[in-house]
């Protein structure tokens, strides 16, 4: 298995690692049994993702996709951040090995979970904005 240089670079120097004490949207997806958990912290102000941080338990691809996903949404309007797909994360990382594609899905889900939490905290039903998404790793099918 070979990781792209971009993946290794993001793994070695992950962007936006940590927690946000003043986050107003937090989402966690995946589970320990299948070996991947991603937690996203969002600080949303005036409809803009002002800040974002993540913590990830998982493989190299899980760390790199989390890192890249945070970079892709930081500073972006909420509507745009919600459009982030796992494909965009994969492209930005110059590809992922086939066995690791599910990690990029998890990154997309983590952002959606954090966004849903943000809307819920505002007293708004997140479904029209975020749509439906799973909090589990689809590749493993574990619950």
């Amino acid at each position: 298995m070979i990781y792209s240089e971009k993946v290794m670079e993001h793994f070695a120097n992950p962007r936006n690692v940590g927690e946000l004490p003043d986050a107003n949207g937090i989402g966690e997806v995946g589970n320990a049994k299948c070996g991947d958990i991603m937690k996203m912290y969002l600080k949303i102000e005036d409809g803009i993702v002002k800040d974002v941080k993540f913590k990830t338990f998982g493989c190299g691809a899980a760390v790199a996709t989390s890192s890249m996903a945070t970079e892709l949404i930081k500073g972006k309007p909420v509507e745009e951040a919600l459009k982030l797909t796992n494909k965009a994360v994969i492209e930005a990382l110059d590809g992922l090995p086939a066995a690791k594609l599910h990690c990029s899905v998890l990154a997309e889900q983590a952002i959606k979970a954090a966004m849903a939490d943000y809307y819920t905290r505002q007293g708004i039903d997140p479904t029209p904005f975020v749509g439906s998404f799973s909090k589990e790793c689809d590749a493993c099918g574990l619950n």
Partner: protein
Amino acid sequence: MNSTEKRFVYADNAATTRVSEAALNAALPYFRESYGNASSIYSLGMNAARAVVSSRAKVAEAIGAKSGEIYFTSGGSESDNWAIKCVAESGAAVGKKHIITTNFEHHAVLHTCQYLEKKGFRVTYLPVDSMGLISPEQVKNAICEDTCLVTVMFANNEIGTILPIPEIGKICREKKVLFHTDAVQAVGNVPIDVSKMNIDLLSLSGHKLHAPKGIGALYIRSGIKISNLIHGGAQERTKRAGTENVPSIVALGVAISDAVKSIEEKQRSVSEKRDRLISELLKISETRLNGDPEKRLCGNVNISFRGIEGESLLLSLDLEGIAASSGSACTSGSLDPSHVLLAIGLPHETAHGSLRLSINEETSDEDIDYIIDTVPRVVKKLRSMSPLWERICRDEKIADR
């Protein structure tokens, strides 16, 4: 050594080893000088054939066998497949379709047994205990009227546990059941005498003991008739077709002789380094040693760190110049973590965070120092970004150190 200085430490000798200079030098003339086909009648061929004969004697001597009992193969997996499938075939011919093995064998054995199950064989997978051991009584109790083969690994490749092979061999001989052992990890690390240990078939591999990849051997005790796995020409006394890989066969002979020559000295010096590594790494909190602390290969260290995942641990160690291995799902090539770690009772999440370091006589004290210095740092960094570790600390009231 300055502790911040980066070095390269190869700690994955259970995966493969570096070819020794002696083995390489012995093999080289058989590429461009004595490159003849060992089956040819002219001197160029006969030179190659002589080299094969001499190497066969060396391999035999290393495990207490006779030359006529050694067959060269492409490696451990082929040897395992040959032994198990062809003994099973002989067994089936006389109505014996039961095989006994363990639940933590190498996949070359496990997947072969599963294949035979699909072909109508019954397989008993003896469960190992939390140390990775089975008792000889478990084998004794599992033997039935129709058991044709017992196959139990000599030493486990992941956790290093050494199994009670002589005791199992004795039982099999008494019960007149053939006994095969996958000794790929044991040869060169544990003294082996196939006749004293009552072993009927034994698989070994070259690249685990400083010979090249792609060469191995199967020992078949004289008098045991098993069919061929690879059909074709009359090589290996008509038992294994295919033009002999002469350079690698020569290298295997040299490497295996060297490996068994200094086995006691190696066991002493390497296990001392191993134990220092284990005791230092176990100082990291929420960490456990996998495998038996005593009945253990001299170079094997296998430790689980809670809250982190194995692949990211390996990639982080690689960035620091340390090459190691893990039993996490991501490195096992499947979605489940290592079947060995699950077999000894580890929960999935602990198995994901395992690290195997396999050292050998080439590993220096400075290398050990470097590992001891680096691993805690890397574990700390990964834990600091792990939501699982955060949860473990919160739920179990562990002070994050």
